[in-house]
């Protein structure tokens, strides 16, 4: 037995050592926190030596820079750099807060929320391995650092703490293939997962093809991963390409654009921030006047109002009509004469800075067949009818000389019939117009012959009973 062991001693020892390490590998792979004592010993043994070396290097280079090359300039430069970094972070935070619509609320929020609590750390050495993207910093559990904390710089995120030892911590850089963080784009608010690739650029994964992401767009942390607070800069989108299952988005990290930085900040208590708002597509956009020689718009048309919602367009039409007729809404005594809203239906009249309502001569604001509200009262005390039609004058008042000018067509009339108020249309006797009076020459409305019923029932009667005919005399009696 002994000779057997002596004969195969080397291979036996080899197998034993490999088996022991396989067990160690299995245990540490299953539970990364286990077997920490080996790591603690090694890190504790290496950290002081690395600190001494770093101190010697920093001291010698500092001596060289401060006393040999430049005496005060370097100190001033370092002071300005640290102040600039601090102000950069503060500026980003303030910008995000002040972009909210309610400035008073933003100021209150800013007063209530303070910036994230951080602790400064210095990178003292990198991880072992040729392609390792892991670094060690000189802050550990004794400084309050815990595993899972975010590591940032004023320019952006750098990585996260994957192991915390008493005097040092291990940080996984964002360029490591095992790194992942939840991100969101600035403009399109597209959510994705930032992953390292082992190269200076990272990629954003799990972005669907239909999502719109543009190169040059900023990427921020979304806070979904519960590691990085929301609102921290990640980088700029450099390329967007279609991938196999998702879009392939490459991002250049802003936190490492100056190479591997020496000083970082570890977020002890992260504070979520608002992501800067991108310009919204729903905001009114100024559209310049059309170029000369554009025949689609009538001559003398005013500069079109800014494009907005349907309500904005209607409002501008009524406003233009009021200005044209020198009528100020809401400032007239009861019983005052309202503006002639029938001119809104006339494309010629609508060209005065207002938009056409729809097909010429038809008012699209109210659907056809909508019963009028008998109790509704509009400007000047007249009952409201379908928009675009002014109420007939009360009994006893002379007919409105303007009534026949731009009166709207009769609902239900053949669509081919020209508008009654068209300037080119010849005046027809017996044809009902505004208030049921036959139209005379343009600009005049002839009094109705006595006893002659109007062909078109008056507006008021139609409003009350769309199927009713014209009362006797064709006049509305109140």
């Amino acid at each position: 037995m002994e000779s057997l062991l002596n004969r195969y001693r080397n291979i036996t020892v080899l197998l034993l050592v490999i088996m022991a390490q396989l067990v160690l590998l299995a245990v540490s792979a299953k539970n990364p926190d286990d077997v920490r004592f080996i790591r603690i010993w090694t890190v504790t043994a290496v950290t002081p030596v690395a600190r001494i070396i770093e101190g010697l290097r920093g001291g010698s280079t500092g001596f060289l820079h401060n006393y040999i090359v430049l005496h005060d300039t370097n100190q001033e430069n370092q002071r300005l750099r640290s102040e600039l970094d601090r102000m950069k972070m503060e500026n980003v935070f303030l910008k995000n807060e002040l972009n909210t619509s309610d400035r008073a609320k933003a100021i209150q929020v800013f007063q209530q929320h303070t910036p994230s609590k951080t602790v400064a750390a210095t990178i003292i050495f990198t991880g072992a391995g040729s392609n390792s993207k892991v670094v060690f910093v000189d802050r550990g559990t004794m400084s309050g650092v815990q595993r899972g904390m975010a590591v940032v710089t004023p320019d952006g995120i750098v990585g996260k703490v994957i192991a915390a030892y008493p005097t040092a911590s291990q940080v996984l850089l964002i360029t490591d293939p095992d790194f992942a963080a939840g991100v969101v784009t600035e403009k399109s608010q597209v959510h994705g997962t930032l992953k390292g690739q082992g190269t200076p650029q990272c990629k954003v994964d799990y972005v669907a093809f239909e999502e719109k992401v543009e190169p040059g767009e900023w990427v921020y942390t979304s806070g979904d991963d519960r590691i990085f607070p929301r609102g921290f800069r990640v980088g700029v989108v450099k390329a967007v390409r279609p991938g196999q299952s998702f879009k392939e988005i490459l991002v250049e990290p802003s936190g490492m654009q100056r190479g591997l930085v020496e000083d970082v900040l570890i977020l002890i208590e992260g504070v979520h921030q608002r992501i800067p708002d991108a310009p919204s597509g729903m905001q009114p956009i100024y559209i310049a006047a059309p170029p000369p020689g554009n025949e689609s718009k009538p001559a003398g048309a005013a500069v079109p109002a800014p494009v907005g919602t349907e309500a904005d367009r209607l409002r501008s039409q009524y406003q233009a009509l009021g200005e044209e007729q020198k009528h100020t809404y809401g400032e007239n005594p009861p019983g005052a004469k309202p503006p002639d809203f029938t001119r809104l239906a006339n494309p010629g009249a609508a060209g005065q800075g207002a938009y056409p309502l729809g097909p010429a001569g038809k008012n699209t604001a109210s659907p056809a067949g909508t019963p009028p509200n008998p109790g509704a009262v509009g400007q000047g005390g007249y009952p409201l009818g379908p928009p675009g039609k002014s109420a007939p004058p009360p009994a006893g008042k002379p007919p409105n000389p303007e009534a026949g000018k731009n009166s709207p067509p009769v609902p239900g009339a053949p669509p081919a019939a020209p508008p009654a108020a068209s300037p080119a249309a010849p005046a027809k006797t017996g044809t009902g117009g505004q208030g049921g009076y036959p139209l005379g020459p343009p600009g005049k409305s002839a009094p109705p012959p006595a006893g002659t019923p109007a062909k078109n029932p008056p507006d008021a009667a139609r409003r009350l009973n769309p199927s009713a005919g014209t009362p006797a005399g064709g006049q509305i009696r109140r």
Partner: protein
Amino acid sequence: MTYSGERILLSSQREGQVSRFRKWVFLVVPLVAILFQVYVPMFFPFLSFLEMPLLVVVYFAIMRRSQISGLMVGALVGLAQDSLSKNPLGMFGIVKTLVGYFAASVGVRLDVEHGLIRLLLGFFFFVFHQFLYWVMSRALLGQQMTFDWPHTAMLAALNAVVGVALFHFLDKLKERA
């Protein structure tokens, strides 16, 4: 022992002289190698390709000509390297254990004082180290890594050249008989 360029293979194990080193050399040299790998790339990133711990393991294995000594040095250096990386403990340990064992086995048969032999050994064991690490990463950890043969061969050549110079420097630390 005077070196003869015509004899590379040793006719017997007794012809190979076992190099002896002081105990502190076994402690300091691997530590310096690990420190070099974790500190220098911070300021000279292009030097991250150098696998100084591997070269040190190969050197001690071929010079000691003891398989047990070689595998133990490899295991300890590999575990230390694992401790300072994000890998699970045992990845570099197993790989360098095997490198130390086989390097010692080869050193028994070859005249490792020859520069060309050292260059070839450095090249071969670098490729072996990277290949074995790749196999273990895919088989044991399930990581989808690719093995770039041309890139690995180029890095192996560079490490071999550096290894020859390093071995020449470490020869100064041998105990004189």
